[in-house]
Protein backbone atom coordinates (compact mmCIF):
# COMPACT_ATOMS: atom_id res chain seq x y z
CA UNK A 1 0.00 0.00 0.00
CA UNK A 2 2.84 2.38 0.87
CA UNK A 3 4.39 1.75 -2.50
CA UNK A 4 1.17 2.74 -4.28
CA UNK A 5 1.00 5.86 -2.15
CA UNK A 6 4.50 6.95 -3.14
CA UNK A 7 3.89 6.23 -6.80
CA UNK A 8 0.62 8.11 -6.63
CA UNK A 9 2.22 11.15 -5.06
CA UNK A 10 4.88 11.14 -7.74
CA UNK A 11 2.17 11.11 -10.36
CA UNK A 12 0.42 14.02 -8.71
CA UNK A 13 3.58 16.07 -8.92
CA UNK A 14 4.68 14.97 -12.36
CA UNK A 15 1.65 14.54 -14.54
CA UNK A 16 -0.58 17.57 -14.04
CA UNK A 17 -0.40 19.65 -17.20
CA UNK A 18 -2.56 22.31 -18.84
CA UNK A 19 -4.33 21.12 -21.97
CA UNK A 20 -5.86 24.31 -23.29
CA UNK A 21 -9.39 25.69 -23.08
CA UNK A 22 -9.27 25.57 -19.29
CA UNK A 23 -8.82 21.81 -19.08
CA UNK A 24 -6.08 20.29 -16.95
CA UNK A 25 -5.17 16.63 -17.21
CA UNK A 26 -3.88 14.54 -14.34
CA UNK A 27 -2.83 10.88 -14.55
CA UNK A 28 -2.89 8.39 -11.68
CA UNK A 29 -1.00 5.09 -12.01
CA UNK A 30 -2.65 1.92 -10.75
CA UNK A 31 -1.02 -1.40 -9.82
CA UNK A 32 0.33 -3.27 -12.87
CA UNK A 33 -2.35 -5.41 -14.48
CA UNK A 34 -5.25 -3.50 -12.92
CA UNK A 35 -6.75 -2.99 -16.40
CA UNK A 36 -9.45 -0.57 -15.22
CA UNK A 37 -12.59 -1.13 -17.30
CA UNK A 38 -15.20 1.23 -15.83
CA UNK A 39 -15.11 3.73 -12.97
CA UNK A 40 -17.40 5.77 -10.77
CA UNK A 41 -16.47 8.91 -8.81
CA UNK A 42 -17.71 8.62 -5.22
CA UNK A 43 -19.29 11.25 -2.93
CA UNK A 44 -16.21 11.32 -0.66
CA UNK A 45 -13.91 12.39 -3.51
CA UNK A 46 -12.49 8.94 -4.20
CA UNK A 47 -12.93 7.01 -7.47
CA UNK A 48 -14.03 3.36 -7.72
CA UNK A 49 -12.91 1.26 -10.68
CA UNK A 50 -13.43 -2.31 -11.87
CA UNK A 51 -10.38 -4.52 -12.35
CA UNK A 52 -11.53 -7.38 -14.59
CA UNK A 53 -8.38 -9.54 -14.58
CA UNK A 54 -7.93 -9.15 -10.83
CA UNK A 55 -11.59 -9.81 -9.99
CA UNK A 56 -11.51 -6.74 -7.80
CA UNK A 57 -13.03 -3.35 -7.16
CA UNK A 58 -10.35 -0.70 -6.92
CA UNK A 59 -10.47 2.59 -5.06
CA UNK A 60 -8.26 5.59 -5.83
CA UNK A 61 -7.94 8.50 -3.45
CA UNK A 62 -6.98 11.36 -5.80
CA UNK A 63 -5.87 13.54 -2.89
CA UNK A 64 -3.05 11.13 -2.00
CA UNK A 65 -2.78 8.80 -5.00
CA UNK A 66 -3.35 5.87 -2.64
CA UNK A 67 -4.93 2.80 -4.26
CA UNK A 68 -6.56 -0.24 -2.73
CA UNK A 69 -8.15 -3.22 -4.48
CA UNK A 70 -10.97 -5.19 -2.88
CA UNK A 71 -11.36 -8.82 -4.04
CA UNK A 72 -14.93 -9.61 -5.12
CA UNK A 73 -14.70 -13.41 -4.94
CA UNK A 74 -13.45 -16.41 -6.90
CA UNK A 75 -14.38 -16.16 -10.57
CA UNK A 76 -15.14 -12.45 -10.43
CA UNK A 77 -14.64 -10.37 -13.59
CA UNK A 78 -16.34 -7.01 -12.95
CA UNK A 79 -17.32 -4.81 -15.88
CA UNK A 80 -19.46 -1.82 -14.83
CA UNK A 81 -19.70 0.19 -11.62
CA UNK A 82 -21.98 3.01 -10.50
CA UNK A 83 -22.54 4.70 -7.16
CA UNK A 84 -26.08 4.14 -5.92
CA UNK A 85 -28.41 6.36 -3.91
CA UNK A 86 -27.02 4.63 -0.79
CA UNK A 87 -23.53 5.94 -1.60
CA UNK A 88 -22.21 2.43 -2.28
CA UNK A 89 -20.57 1.13 -5.47
CA UNK A 90 -22.79 -1.33 -7.38
CA UNK A 91 -21.10 -3.59 -9.89
CA UNK A 92 -22.15 -5.72 -12.86
CA UNK A 93 -19.88 -8.73 -12.49
CA UNK A 94 -19.73 -10.82 -15.66
CA UNK A 95 -17.59 -13.49 -14.06
CA UNK A 96 -19.93 -14.04 -11.12
CA UNK A 97 -23.09 -13.53 -13.22
CA UNK A 98 -24.28 -11.31 -10.39
CA UNK A 99 -24.86 -7.76 -9.26
CA UNK A 100 -22.36 -6.98 -6.50
CA UNK A 101 -22.48 -4.27 -3.83
CA UNK A 102 -19.47 -3.18 -1.80
CA UNK A 103 -20.08 -1.36 1.46
CA UNK A 104 -18.00 1.83 1.21
CA UNK A 105 -17.14 1.77 4.94
CA UNK A 106 -16.77 -1.88 5.94
CA UNK A 107 -15.74 -3.10 2.42
CA UNK A 108 -18.18 -5.98 2.90
CA UNK A 109 -19.08 -7.58 -0.44
CA UNK A 110 -22.73 -8.50 -1.10
CA UNK A 111 -23.95 -10.49 -4.06
CA UNK A 112 -27.29 -10.68 -5.97
CA UNK A 113 -27.01 -13.60 -8.40
CA UNK A 114 -28.98 -13.84 -11.62
CA UNK A 115 -31.60 -16.62 -11.64
CA UNK A 116 -30.07 -20.04 -12.36
CA UNK A 117 -32.17 -20.66 -15.46
CA UNK A 118 -30.97 -17.52 -17.15
CA UNK A 119 -27.51 -18.88 -17.93
CA UNK A 120 -24.46 -16.74 -18.55
CA UNK A 121 -25.57 -13.15 -19.24
CA UNK A 122 -22.19 -11.48 -19.81
CA UNK A 123 -23.27 -8.67 -17.48
CA UNK A 124 -22.22 -5.27 -18.68
CA UNK A 125 -23.39 -1.98 -17.14
CA UNK A 126 -25.66 -0.78 -14.27
CA UNK A 127 -27.64 2.42 -13.67
CA UNK A 128 -30.25 3.60 -11.16
CA UNK A 129 -33.70 4.87 -12.11
CA UNK A 130 -35.48 7.67 -10.24
CA UNK A 131 -37.08 5.18 -7.82
CA UNK A 132 -33.93 3.66 -6.39
CA UNK A 133 -33.98 0.53 -8.53
CA UNK A 134 -30.90 -0.70 -10.34
CA UNK A 135 -31.18 -1.58 -14.03
CA UNK A 136 -28.53 -3.60 -15.82
CA UNK A 137 -27.57 -4.97 -19.22
CA UNK A 138 -26.13 -8.34 -20.23
CA UNK A 139 -24.37 -8.52 -23.57
CA UNK A 140 -25.59 -12.01 -24.31
CA UNK A 141 -29.09 -10.67 -24.84
CA UNK A 142 -30.73 -9.59 -21.59
CA UNK A 143 -31.49 -6.58 -19.45
CA UNK A 144 -33.01 -6.50 -16.01
CA UNK A 145 -33.70 -4.75 -12.74
CA UNK A 146 -32.88 -5.23 -9.08
CA UNK A 147 -34.69 -3.63 -6.16
CA UNK A 148 -31.96 -3.25 -3.51
CA UNK A 149 -34.55 -2.95 -0.73
CA UNK A 150 -36.15 -6.32 -1.38
CA UNK A 151 -33.58 -8.14 -3.51
CA UNK A 152 -36.29 -8.69 -6.13
CA UNK A 153 -34.66 -9.24 -9.53
CA UNK A 154 -36.35 -9.28 -12.94
CA UNK A 155 -34.61 -10.35 -16.15
CA UNK A 156 -35.94 -9.71 -19.66
CA UNK A 157 -34.96 -10.90 -23.12
CA UNK A 158 -33.60 -8.00 -25.14
CA UNK A 159 -34.96 -7.14 -28.59
CA UNK A 160 -32.85 -8.83 -31.31
CA UNK A 161 -30.94 -10.90 -28.77
CA UNK A 162 -27.27 -10.28 -28.13
CA UNK A 163 -25.91 -6.77 -27.75
CA UNK A 164 -27.15 -4.81 -24.67
CA UNK A 165 -24.19 -2.71 -23.53
CA UNK A 166 -24.30 0.79 -21.98
CA UNK A 167 -27.26 1.93 -19.90
CA UNK A 168 -28.11 5.28 -18.33
CA UNK A 169 -30.90 7.26 -16.72
CA UNK A 170 -32.12 10.72 -17.70
CA UNK A 171 -32.72 13.45 -15.09
CA UNK A 172 -36.41 12.45 -14.84
CA UNK A 173 -35.42 8.85 -14.07
CA UNK A 174 -36.16 7.29 -17.47
CA UNK A 175 -33.78 4.51 -18.46
CA UNK A 176 -32.26 3.87 -21.88
CA UNK A 177 -29.78 1.23 -23.01
CA UNK A 178 -27.70 0.72 -26.15
CA UNK A 179 -27.32 -2.52 -28.09
CA UNK A 180 -23.91 -2.83 -29.69
CA UNK A 181 -24.70 -5.92 -31.77
CA UNK A 182 -28.32 -4.84 -32.35
CA UNK A 183 -27.41 -1.27 -33.41
CA UNK A 184 -30.25 0.43 -31.56
CA UNK A 185 -31.09 2.19 -28.34
CA UNK A 186 -34.13 1.27 -26.27
CA UNK A 187 -36.25 2.97 -23.65
CA UNK A 188 -37.39 0.76 -20.79
CA UNK A 189 -40.89 1.03 -19.35
CA UNK A 190 -40.05 1.01 -15.66
CA UNK A 191 -43.39 -0.59 -14.71
CA UNK A 192 -43.67 -3.43 -17.21
CA UNK A 193 -39.98 -3.74 -18.04
CA UNK A 194 -40.79 -3.65 -21.74
CA UNK A 195 -38.07 -2.21 -23.97
CA UNK A 196 -39.07 -0.06 -26.95
CA UNK A 197 -36.49 0.01 -29.72
CA UNK A 198 -35.48 3.43 -31.06
CA UNK A 199 -33.52 3.26 -34.31
CA UNK A 200 -30.62 5.65 -34.86
CA UNK A 201 -30.55 7.07 -38.38
CA UNK A 202 -27.34 5.26 -39.42
CA UNK A 203 -27.80 1.54 -40.14
CA UNK A 204 -25.45 -0.89 -38.34
CA UNK A 205 -23.89 2.01 -36.45
CA UNK A 206 -22.96 -0.07 -33.38
CA UNK A 207 -24.58 1.95 -30.56
CA UNK A 208 -22.27 1.17 -27.66
CA UNK A 209 -23.02 3.48 -24.74
CA UNK A 210 -25.60 6.12 -23.86
CA UNK A 211 -25.69 9.12 -21.54
CA UNK A 212 -28.17 11.91 -20.90
CA UNK A 213 -27.63 15.65 -20.93
CA UNK A 214 -29.35 17.94 -18.42
CA UNK A 215 -32.37 18.31 -20.74
CA UNK A 216 -32.98 14.57 -20.97
CA UNK A 217 -31.63 14.21 -24.50
CA UNK A 218 -29.87 10.89 -25.00
CA UNK A 219 -26.34 10.87 -26.45
CA UNK A 220 -25.05 7.74 -28.14
CA UNK A 221 -21.49 6.64 -28.89
CA UNK A 222 -21.47 4.69 -32.15
CA UNK A 223 -18.59 2.20 -32.36
CA UNK A 224 -18.97 1.01 -35.95
CA UNK A 225 -19.71 4.36 -37.56
CA UNK A 226 -17.32 6.47 -35.46
CA UNK A 227 -20.12 8.95 -34.81
CA UNK A 228 -21.86 10.52 -31.84
CA UNK A 229 -25.60 10.96 -32.10
CA UNK A 230 -28.29 12.66 -30.06
CA UNK A 231 -31.89 11.57 -29.57
CA UNK A 232 -34.52 14.01 -28.33
CA UNK A 233 -37.32 12.04 -26.62
CA UNK A 234 -39.75 14.98 -26.86
CA UNK A 235 -39.55 15.46 -30.61
CA UNK A 236 -38.26 12.06 -31.62
CA UNK A 237 -35.57 13.79 -33.67
CA UNK A 238 -31.99 12.59 -34.12
CA UNK A 239 -28.85 14.48 -34.99
CA UNK A 240 -25.51 12.86 -35.81
CA UNK A 241 -21.90 14.03 -36.01
CA UNK A 242 -18.79 12.20 -37.22
CA UNK A 243 -15.76 12.44 -34.96
CA UNK A 244 -12.61 13.96 -36.47
CA UNK A 245 -9.76 11.82 -37.81
CA UNK A 246 -9.27 9.20 -40.50
CA UNK A 247 -11.12 6.32 -38.81
CA UNK A 248 -12.76 7.19 -35.50
CA UNK A 249 -14.10 4.42 -33.27
CA UNK A 250 -16.40 5.93 -30.65
CA UNK A 251 -16.47 3.77 -27.54
CA UNK A 252 -17.64 5.79 -24.51
CA UNK A 253 -19.87 8.82 -24.01
CA UNK A 254 -20.50 11.02 -20.98
CA UNK A 255 -22.21 14.41 -20.77
CA UNK A 256 -20.97 16.76 -18.07
CA UNK A 257 -22.96 19.16 -15.89
CA UNK A 258 -22.56 21.94 -18.50
CA UNK A 259 -23.77 19.67 -21.31
CA UNK A 260 -20.36 19.27 -22.90
CA UNK A 261 -20.16 15.82 -24.49
CA UNK A 262 -17.09 13.70 -23.74
CA UNK A 263 -16.16 10.73 -25.90
CA UNK A 264 -13.38 8.19 -26.13
CA UNK A 265 -12.08 7.45 -29.62
CA UNK A 266 -9.99 4.29 -30.05
CA UNK A 267 -9.15 5.25 -33.64
CA UNK A 268 -7.34 8.41 -32.54
CA UNK A 269 -6.34 7.03 -29.11
CA UNK A 270 -7.87 10.17 -27.63
CA UNK A 271 -10.51 11.71 -25.46
CA UNK A 272 -12.71 14.04 -27.48
CA UNK A 273 -14.83 16.88 -26.16
CA UNK A 274 -17.80 17.98 -28.26
CA UNK A 275 -19.57 21.31 -27.80
CA UNK A 276 -23.18 20.94 -29.01
CA UNK A 277 -23.58 24.74 -29.24
CA UNK A 278 -20.72 25.27 -31.68
CA UNK A 279 -20.68 21.67 -33.04
CA UNK A 280 -16.88 21.65 -32.66
CA UNK A 281 -14.63 18.89 -31.38
CA UNK A 282 -11.59 19.29 -29.16
CA UNK A 283 -9.17 16.35 -29.13
CA UNK A 284 -7.01 15.34 -26.16
CA UNK A 285 -4.57 12.63 -27.38
CA UNK A 286 -3.59 10.05 -24.76
CA UNK A 287 -0.01 10.29 -23.57
CA UNK A 288 0.61 6.57 -24.14
CA UNK A 289 -0.27 4.22 -27.02
CA UNK A 290 -3.41 2.07 -26.93
CA UNK A 291 -4.95 3.73 -23.87
CA UNK A 292 -8.23 1.93 -24.63
CA UNK A 293 -10.66 4.05 -22.63
CA UNK A 294 -13.86 2.04 -22.35
CA UNK A 295 -16.01 4.35 -20.26
CA UNK A 296 -16.19 7.93 -19.00
CA UNK A 297 -17.91 9.36 -15.94
CA UNK A 298 -17.54 12.52 -13.90
CA UNK A 299 -18.71 14.91 -11.25
CA UNK A 300 -18.90 18.73 -11.46
CA UNK A 301 -15.58 20.03 -12.77
CA UNK A 302 -14.10 16.58 -13.41
CA UNK A 303 -14.32 13.97 -16.16
CA UNK A 304 -12.63 10.66 -15.37
CA UNK A 305 -11.28 8.14 -17.88
CA UNK A 306 -10.06 4.62 -17.06
CA UNK A 307 -7.16 3.71 -19.37
CA UNK A 308 -7.41 -0.07 -19.45
CA UNK A 309 -4.42 -0.29 -21.77
CA UNK A 310 -2.03 1.70 -19.57
CA UNK A 311 -3.24 0.85 -16.03
CA UNK A 312 -4.05 4.47 -15.25
CA UNK A 313 -7.00 6.64 -14.25
CA UNK A 314 -6.94 10.06 -15.90
CA UNK A 315 -8.95 13.09 -14.84
CA UNK A 316 -9.80 16.04 -17.08
CA UNK A 317 -10.42 19.02 -14.79
CA UNK A 318 -12.67 21.56 -16.49
CA UNK A 319 -12.70 24.43 -14.01
Amino acid at each position, binding site marked *: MRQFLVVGLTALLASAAPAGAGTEIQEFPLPAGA*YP*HDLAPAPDGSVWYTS*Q*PRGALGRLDPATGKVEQIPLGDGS*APHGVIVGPDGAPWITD*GGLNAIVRVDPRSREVGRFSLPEGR*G*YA*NLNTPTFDGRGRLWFTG*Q*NGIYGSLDPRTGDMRVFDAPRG*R*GPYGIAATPDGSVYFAS*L*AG*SYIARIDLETGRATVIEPPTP*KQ*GARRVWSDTKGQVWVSE*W*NSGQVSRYDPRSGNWKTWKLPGARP*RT*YAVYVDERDAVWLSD*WGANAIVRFDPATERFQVFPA*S*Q*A*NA*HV*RQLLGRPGEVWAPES*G*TDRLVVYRTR
Partner: protein
Amino acid sequence: MSPGRGRHVTAGLIGCAVFTGIALAAAPPDPARGARAFAKCYACHSLDPAETGLPGPTLHGLFGRRAGSLPDYEFSEAMVEAGRRQGLVWTPETLDRFLADPEGTLPGTLMGFVGLRDAAERRALIEYLQRATR
Protein backbone atom coordinates in the same frame (compact mmCIF):
# COMPACT_ATOMS: atom_id res chain seq x y z
CA MET B 1 9.18 7.23 -27.34
CA SER B 2 7.47 7.04 -23.99
CA PRO B 3 8.12 4.16 -21.60
CA GLY B 4 4.58 2.97 -22.19
CA ARG B 5 4.96 2.91 -25.96
CA GLY B 6 8.18 0.96 -25.61
CA ARG B 7 6.45 -1.58 -23.46
CA HIS B 8 3.74 -2.06 -26.08
CA VAL B 9 6.25 -2.54 -28.90
CA THR B 10 8.14 -5.09 -26.87
CA ALA B 11 4.96 -6.92 -26.09
CA GLY B 12 4.11 -6.94 -29.80
CA LEU B 13 7.44 -8.47 -30.76
CA ILE B 14 7.07 -11.11 -28.12
CA GLY B 15 3.60 -11.71 -29.48
CA CYS B 16 4.94 -12.34 -32.98
CA ALA B 17 7.45 -14.79 -31.59
CA VAL B 18 5.00 -16.76 -29.51
CA PHE B 19 2.45 -16.95 -32.34
CA THR B 20 4.57 -19.61 -33.99
CA GLY B 21 5.65 -23.12 -33.18
CA ILE B 22 4.26 -23.69 -29.69
CA ALA B 23 2.08 -26.71 -29.09
CA LEU B 24 -0.83 -26.76 -26.68
CA ALA B 25 -0.35 -28.79 -23.54
CA ALA B 26 -2.16 -32.11 -23.65
CA ALA B 27 -5.40 -32.31 -21.68
CA PRO B 28 -8.64 -34.22 -22.17
CA PRO B 29 -11.28 -32.28 -24.14
CA ASP B 30 -14.17 -30.83 -22.17
CA PRO B 31 -17.01 -29.99 -24.63
CA ALA B 32 -19.34 -28.56 -22.01
CA ARG B 33 -16.65 -26.28 -20.67
CA GLY B 34 -15.80 -25.19 -24.20
CA ALA B 35 -19.40 -24.24 -24.88
CA ARG B 36 -19.54 -22.29 -21.62
CA ALA B 37 -16.35 -20.47 -22.51
CA PHE B 38 -17.77 -19.52 -25.89
CA ALA B 39 -20.57 -17.69 -24.05
CA LYS B 40 -17.93 -15.04 -23.32
CA CYS B 41 -17.38 -14.59 -27.07
CA TYR B 42 -21.00 -14.87 -28.16
CA ALA B 43 -21.92 -11.21 -27.71
CA CYS B 44 -19.58 -10.21 -30.54
CA HIS B 45 -18.89 -13.32 -32.64
CA SER B 46 -21.16 -15.62 -34.62
CA LEU B 47 -20.47 -19.12 -35.88
CA ASP B 48 -22.81 -18.48 -38.81
CA PRO B 49 -21.08 -17.17 -41.97
CA ALA B 50 -24.24 -15.35 -43.00
CA GLU B 51 -24.58 -13.38 -39.78
CA THR B 52 -22.84 -10.06 -40.33
CA GLY B 53 -22.98 -6.67 -38.63
CA LEU B 54 -21.83 -7.94 -35.26
CA PRO B 55 -19.00 -6.20 -33.38
CA GLY B 56 -16.62 -9.04 -34.21
CA PRO B 57 -16.09 -11.12 -37.38
CA THR B 58 -17.76 -14.48 -37.91
CA LEU B 59 -15.67 -17.35 -36.61
CA HIS B 60 -16.91 -19.75 -39.30
CA GLY B 61 -13.88 -21.20 -41.09
CA LEU B 62 -11.50 -19.60 -38.60
CA PHE B 63 -8.78 -22.23 -38.51
CA GLY B 64 -6.35 -21.96 -41.39
CA ARG B 65 -7.46 -18.41 -42.19
CA ARG B 66 -4.99 -15.55 -42.39
CA ALA B 67 -5.62 -13.01 -39.62
CA GLY B 68 -7.57 -9.94 -40.69
CA SER B 69 -8.45 -11.34 -44.11
CA LEU B 70 -12.27 -11.56 -44.18
CA PRO B 71 -13.46 -9.27 -46.99
CA ASP B 72 -16.74 -8.18 -45.38
CA TYR B 73 -15.36 -7.14 -42.00
CA GLU B 74 -13.32 -4.04 -41.09
CA PHE B 75 -10.42 -5.24 -38.93
CA SER B 76 -8.00 -3.11 -36.96
CA GLU B 77 -4.81 -2.14 -38.73
CA ALA B 78 -2.94 -4.22 -36.19
CA MET B 79 -4.86 -7.36 -37.14
CA VAL B 80 -4.46 -6.77 -40.88
CA GLU B 81 -0.72 -6.16 -40.42
CA ALA B 82 -0.34 -9.32 -38.35
CA GLY B 83 -1.88 -11.36 -41.15
CA ARG B 84 -0.42 -9.64 -44.16
CA ARG B 85 3.10 -8.75 -43.05
CA GLN B 86 3.81 -11.14 -40.21
CA GLY B 87 2.01 -14.13 -41.71
CA LEU B 88 -0.27 -14.78 -38.76
CA VAL B 89 -2.61 -17.66 -39.56
CA TRP B 90 -5.15 -18.92 -37.03
CA THR B 91 -4.27 -22.33 -35.67
CA PRO B 92 -5.03 -23.82 -32.26
CA GLU B 93 -1.60 -22.64 -31.12
CA THR B 94 -1.79 -19.06 -32.40
CA LEU B 95 -5.34 -18.67 -31.11
CA ASP B 96 -4.25 -19.94 -27.70
CA ARG B 97 -1.56 -17.28 -27.48
CA PHE B 98 -3.90 -14.55 -28.65
CA LEU B 99 -6.70 -15.47 -26.26
CA ALA B 100 -4.33 -15.58 -23.30
CA ASP B 101 -3.65 -11.86 -23.63
CA PRO B 102 -5.18 -10.23 -26.73
CA GLU B 103 -3.84 -6.72 -26.22
CA GLY B 104 -0.43 -7.91 -25.05
CA THR B 105 0.19 -10.23 -27.99
CA LEU B 106 -1.39 -8.00 -30.62
CA PRO B 107 -1.20 -4.35 -29.50
CA GLY B 108 -3.73 -2.22 -31.33
CA THR B 109 -6.35 -4.95 -31.64
CA LEU B 110 -9.88 -3.59 -31.35
CA MET B 111 -11.18 -6.77 -29.71
CA GLY B 112 -12.39 -5.43 -26.40
CA PHE B 113 -11.89 -8.60 -24.42
CA VAL B 114 -9.54 -8.98 -21.51
CA GLY B 115 -8.64 -12.55 -22.48
CA LEU B 116 -8.77 -15.98 -20.87
CA ARG B 117 -5.98 -16.46 -18.35
CA ASP B 118 -6.93 -20.07 -17.55
CA ALA B 119 -5.05 -22.39 -19.95
CA ALA B 120 -7.54 -25.24 -19.47
CA GLU B 121 -10.45 -22.95 -20.30
CA ARG B 122 -8.67 -21.77 -23.45
CA ARG B 123 -8.02 -25.36 -24.48
CA ALA B 124 -11.67 -26.27 -23.98
CA LEU B 125 -12.77 -23.24 -25.99
CA ILE B 126 -10.39 -24.01 -28.85
CA GLU B 127 -11.51 -27.64 -28.96
CA TYR B 128 -15.09 -26.40 -29.13
CA LEU B 129 -14.30 -23.91 -31.89
CA GLN B 130 -12.44 -26.51 -33.94
CA ARG B 131 -15.74 -28.39 -34.23
CA ALA B 132 -18.17 -25.46 -34.30
CA THR B 133 -16.44 -23.32 -36.91
CA ARG B 134 -16.24 -25.94 -39.67
